[in-house]
């Protein structure tokens, strides 16, 4: 079964990004497919590669980047939410005249159309948020 996931809460806030990660891991282990995870609202902050949590603590960004690398999950960040919060890829940084970008491996910036498409193409849509 194809399961799409939406995350709308930032990392290290309550638990949404952690719960979602454990859910996705369990879904893949059970033989389901998670083709895409969409990061919306404060959830886009998961995608910054500049976060440096203590070494003995979970690294939420690296967990997701690792999942994308291992399973090919498409990690999509909402562009409008990302721009407001200073989350940029190389293209956006150039386009906006900024001196750096901060998006982590495995994530890409795109639009809400990707959320709608995920809702249409997946059998289930599961939301994690605040």
């Amino acid at each position, binding site marked *: 079964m194809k399961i799409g996931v939406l995350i709308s809460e930032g990392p290290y806030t309550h638990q949404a990004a952690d719960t979602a990660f454990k859910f996705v891991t369990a879904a893949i282990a*059970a033989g389901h497919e998670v083709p895409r995870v969409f990061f919306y609202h404060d959830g886009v902050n998961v995608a910054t590669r500049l976060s440096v949590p203590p070494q003995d603590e979970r690294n939420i960004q690296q967990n997701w980047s690792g999942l994308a690398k291992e399973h090919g999950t498409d990690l999509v960040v909402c562009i409008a939410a990302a721009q407001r919060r200073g989350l940029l890829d190389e293209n956006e940084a150039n386009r906006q005249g900024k001196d750096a970008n901060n998006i982590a491996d495995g994530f890409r910036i795109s639009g809400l159309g990707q959320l709608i498409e995920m809702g249409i193409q997946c059998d289930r*849509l599961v939301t994690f948020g605040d």
Partner: protein
Amino acid sequence: MATLHTVNKSPFANQSLLSCLNHVKDGDSVLMIEDGVYGGLAGSGLSDAVAAKAGSVQVFVLQEDLEARGIDAGRLIDGVTAVGYDGFVNLVAETDRTQAWL
């Protein structure tokens, strides 16, 4: 069409569990996750409201979030069942859709 309802906030913090219980249809499932697991505790002011629904609706709590809060599964309301993440995934697959009460 059965729906899986997820509730992730303590019923002592906001109304989302009560709203959820007021909207569920017979045959639906409710899964309490994160701080929502406090809604599964027996002996609270809200236990009767949860227990009253636990017959027509299947009510679950996420085991890992229970343990993270030091709650033994023995303290759950009768009819409320603890499940792991594998159970969460099965509930999503078995029901027709998932509604998060955020």
